[in-house]
Every structure is written in C-alpha cells, then in structure tokens.
C-alpha cells in the first residue's frame, strides 16, 4: 500500500497492472522451485512413479514367476538385480509391482477422502448455523473412534479386498480434511474481499467459484500431499499384519513383512523394500513441507 501512495511518477493504475502480473500461484511456484528439499523430493518421487508405471513392463522377470532353482539368490547374481526371495521370485520385479500397488492405493484412497472431506467441510462451513454444528459433532465422534481397529475388523470381516480397503482408508482420512476445509470456508466467508465481491454484486455461486475455492486450494493441496503417504502407511501397516494386499500381488508393506521374516537368511529382502518405502515417504514429506511454505507465505 505504501508503494501505491508513493507512486507519483507512474499512475496508480499502471502500478496495479504491474502488480497483477504475478498471481498467488506464480509466487508459490517460484518459492517452491527455490526450495531444494522439495525439488529433490519431487524428482525422486517422479522417478519412483515412472518406475512404478513403466517398470513392470520392462522388468526382466514377471513379479510372480516362481523358480525353485533360484531361491534366495543374493543381489546381482544371474541377472537378478536385487536378488530373489524364498520362492525364487525376482525382488526387483516384485519391488516395482509393490511400488505400483502402494502408489495406486495412496492416490485412490486420498481421492476418496478428498471428495468426502471437501464436500462435508465446505457444506458445513458455508451453510453454518445448526447444520454446521451437527455435521462437525459427527466428525468429533468419529475422530475419537479407534479407527485402525475398525479397519482391522473390516479386513477380517470381509476378507482383504482392494476396493474395500480404498474405501475404508479413505473414509478414515477424510475427517481432518473436512475440518481444514470447514475452518477455511468459515474464515474466508468473513474476509473483506468476499464482502467487497458481494458489494460489487457477485452472486453466491460466483463468490464460491472465484474467491472461496481458489483460496481453499492451498491448504487442501498441502494436506493432500500429507494424506497420500499416510494412506500408503496405513495400507502397509495392514499388509504387515497380513490383512492387506494378498500374494502374489504385493505392496511395499507386504514385501517388508516378508523380508522381516527372512532377514536372517536374506537381508536384501528387508533392506531394499524398506529403502524404497523410506525414500517415498521422505519425498512426500519434503514436498508437503515445501508446498506449505510456498503456498502460505505468512506462515514462515
């Protein structure tokens, strides 16, 4: 503001136009790309994603190809880059498959939680009043459920079913999302620029589309990057207990569980899947932190 009032040489109009050249998102992108940890995270994650998508097509062995003659080969023997497991299956191929399954679960379950959470939170926040109170009370009650136990019960009850797992994990993760979205909507509704928009004659729909949603996007994007790894962890947790994805398919958690049982005989079965898992989670974490710093400039 101070610069605007001092703008004597150029007209205030041109200064406003010059300022408009960089949107909130341009700024955020610049800040994100300047953050080394976040850029490293994005690079590693992109590499992992490409490996997960293309890997199973180019892997030298099928992930479920059993070979009795090649049990527990150490890494770098007979063309098995990362060695083989107790059934002679190629660990590298299984790892690519596991990566693909874990990432897919992360994305789908997060999408489920995103859809439920945003719809629930935005409705509560925008409608307000008694509706808001009831909807948030439901979230409070659900929050205090020991959810992981219910997911375990669900898996025991209905068998390990991929779709059900997506739904179950997604249904757990939407609670925080709905709280964030509601809080944002509530505070945005009272902001001066919304009032200004209303004063200049915009309808409710236009306000939601032009002002509420774009401003909601920031925190939601940040939370999504944190939800994906949380979901991947939850699935791996179930797989570790033997309740997740069933063989011959495997997720990273399943591979780690297998590896943990055979680690005395074949350390590589534990070490490589664990490394892949850690690498992936770290990348998501760095991206999430970077995004938060980039999108919310006041919070640094």
């Amino acid at each position, binding site marked *: 503001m101070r610069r605007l009032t001092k703008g004597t040489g150029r007209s205030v109009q041109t200064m406003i136009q010059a300022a408009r050249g960089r949107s909130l998102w341009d700024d955020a992108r610049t800040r994100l790309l300047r953050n080394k940890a976040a850029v490293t995270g994005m690079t590693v994650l992109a590499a992992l994603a490409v490996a997960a998508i293309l890997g199973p097509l180019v892997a030298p062995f099928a992930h479920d190809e059993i070979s009795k003659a090649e049990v527990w080969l150490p890494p770098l023997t007979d063309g098995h880059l990362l060695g083989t497991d107790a059934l002679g299956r190629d660990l590298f191929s299984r790892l690519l498959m596991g990566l693909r399954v874990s990432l897919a679960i992360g994305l789908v379950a997060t999408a489920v939680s995103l859809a439920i959470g945003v719809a629930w939170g935005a409705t509560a926040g925008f409608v307000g009043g008694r509706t808001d109170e009831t909807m948030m009370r439901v979230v409070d009650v659900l929050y205090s*459920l020991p959810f992981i136990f*219910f997911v375990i*019960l669900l898996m025991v009850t*209905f068998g390990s079913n991929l779709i059900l797992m997506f739904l179950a994990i997604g249904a757990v993760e939407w609670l925080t999302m709905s709280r964030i979205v509601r809080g944002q909507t509530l505070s945005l509704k009272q902001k001066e620029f919304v009032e200004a928009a209303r004063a200049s004659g915009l309808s409710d729909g236009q306000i939601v589309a032009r002002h509420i949603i774009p401003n909601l996007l920031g925190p939601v994007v940040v939370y999504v990057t944190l939800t994906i790894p949380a979901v991947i962890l939850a699935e791996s*947790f179930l797989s570790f*207990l033997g309740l997740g994805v069933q063989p011959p398919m495997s997720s990273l958690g399943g591979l780690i569980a297998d590896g*943990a049982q055979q680690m005395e005989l074949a350390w590589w079965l534990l*070490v490589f899947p664990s490394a892949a898992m850690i690498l992936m*989670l770290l990348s998501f*974490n760095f991206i999430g932190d970077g995004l938060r710093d980039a999108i919310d400039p006041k919070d640094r």
Partner: protein
Amino acid sequence: MLRFIGRRLLVAVPTLFLVVTLAFFMMRAAPGGPFDMDRKLAPAIEQNVLARYGMNRPLGEQYLSYLAGVARGDLGPSLKYKDKSVLDILKENAPISLKLGGLAISLAVVLGVSLGVLAAAWQNRPGDHVVMAVAVLGVCIPTFVTAPLLVLAFASKLGWLPSGGWNDGAWRNLVLPVVVLALPQIAVISRLTRAGMIEVLRSNYIRTARAKGLPEHSVILRHALRAAILPLVGYLGPACAGLLTGSLIVERIFNLPGLGRFFVISALQRDYTVVMGMVIVYAVLIVLLNLLGDLIYAALDPRVRLS
C-alpha cells in the same frame, strides 16, 4: 472444572456406544464363528455350545444383553479360552502393554524435549540441522521398518539384545520394543519443542531475562522451557493413540503377550467377546487421555478457560 469433566464424559457416552455397536455388528458379520474347528461339531453339540453362550438367540437380543453387560462392567466370557472371562484376559495382558507404552512415552518426552531444546538453542547451526534431519527420518520411517532393521542389527548381527520375548519384563527384552515405539514420538516431540522454544525465545520477557544478565542456560531452562512445552501437552493424547497403534506391530514383531498382539489373533479366531472388550478398552483409553491432556493444558496455561 468438575462441570467440564462431567460434560466431556457425557459427550464420550455416544462415542463409546457407537464403538460398541459398530464393533459388535462387524464382528458378527464376519464369516465363520468361534466354534469352527477342523472337524465339524455334531449338530447337537454345536447347539449346546451356542446355547451355553447365549448365541442361539436372535442377534438383536444378544446385542441388547451385551450392552446391558457392558453397562454393568461385565464383558462376558472368552469364547476361545475356557474358564476365562474377558476381564481376566485383559488383566493378564494390559499391564504388559501399559508398561511398554509408559516407558516409551517417558523416553519420548525426555529425549524429545531435550533434543528440541538443544536444536532451538543451536538454531540454524549444524547441531540444529542434524537434530531436525534425524527428526524428519523419525517421522517418516514407520515402526514396521525400524523394528526389523534394529532386530537385524542389534539382535542377529551384534547379539547384544534378545530379538523378542517378554521374559517377565527384563530390561534387556524391553530395550528394543520401547525404542522402536518411542522413535516416531521422539521425532514429533522434538519438532514441537523446537518450534515452541524458538517462538518463546523471541518474546519480550526473555529479552528482559537476558537484559538482567541471567546466564543463557537459566534463561532457557527456567524461563523459556515452561512456555515452550505447552503445545506438547495438547499432543499427548494423539501421541498415546499413536503408541496404541504402534503396539499392534511391536508386540507382534517382538512376540510380546500384550493387548495389541491379542487383538489381531482374537479377531482372526472370531473370539467375539475378547475383540469387543479390547476395542472398548482402547476407546476408553483414548477418551480419557484426551481429557487428561486438556486438563493439564488448562492447569498450565492460565489463558485457557475450560468451558
């Protein structure tokens, strides 16, 4: 204060009711039952067994009588362990989980706060970066990765510690499980402490303390720390919930006879009453810990009013 506690406990009633109801019907919807054996029971015997546990009645009636039992504090008999009630089983296993969890949370608070204070005192110097890098790793690496890796290193390769078993709670058996449980919490607590500390160190009363010429350790430990660890108290509830989840994995990997291990086994064996009992215990624990966290928070921070 008392009114606040009373209100919070009242709000917990619908939550617990929902927990019991959901768990009851999910368990009953599971295929198979507690009396399925390799060899099928003769129909007459099966009828007798079902009648013995009241399971020949309609499901709704069983549900109501279970609810009535819970309200009286009776969780019923175990269906798999003859002559043992669910309460007996809980009494046997809960102390083990509590000991593990208690040690883990104590270790996490002591180490986490110390590391966080050190990192804040060294802000933006190498020591700070090392602590925060370790904290990021601690947050990211899940329990089921650290546990087998530590067993591989310290039990299999070095042979310093046993790889599992309870052994009446001997300290050598406790080290690895407690460390594994505490690691993620140490990471979170040190980050929270560091953030709180850095914020407090900027405030006016700290500048006053320094202006009076107090030595830096006294400024940090006697003046800043108390305000800096406030956000931590609010985190204790979620931390304990995290420990409960972690105990499912840790008790399985280290073969410890605690609640977490029993839960998964009982669910797979369809021991309805034991599973229900454990779900209820966990739910009550979470509600109480959250309440306790709020109360401590209010006691420490005069700006917070309970209402």
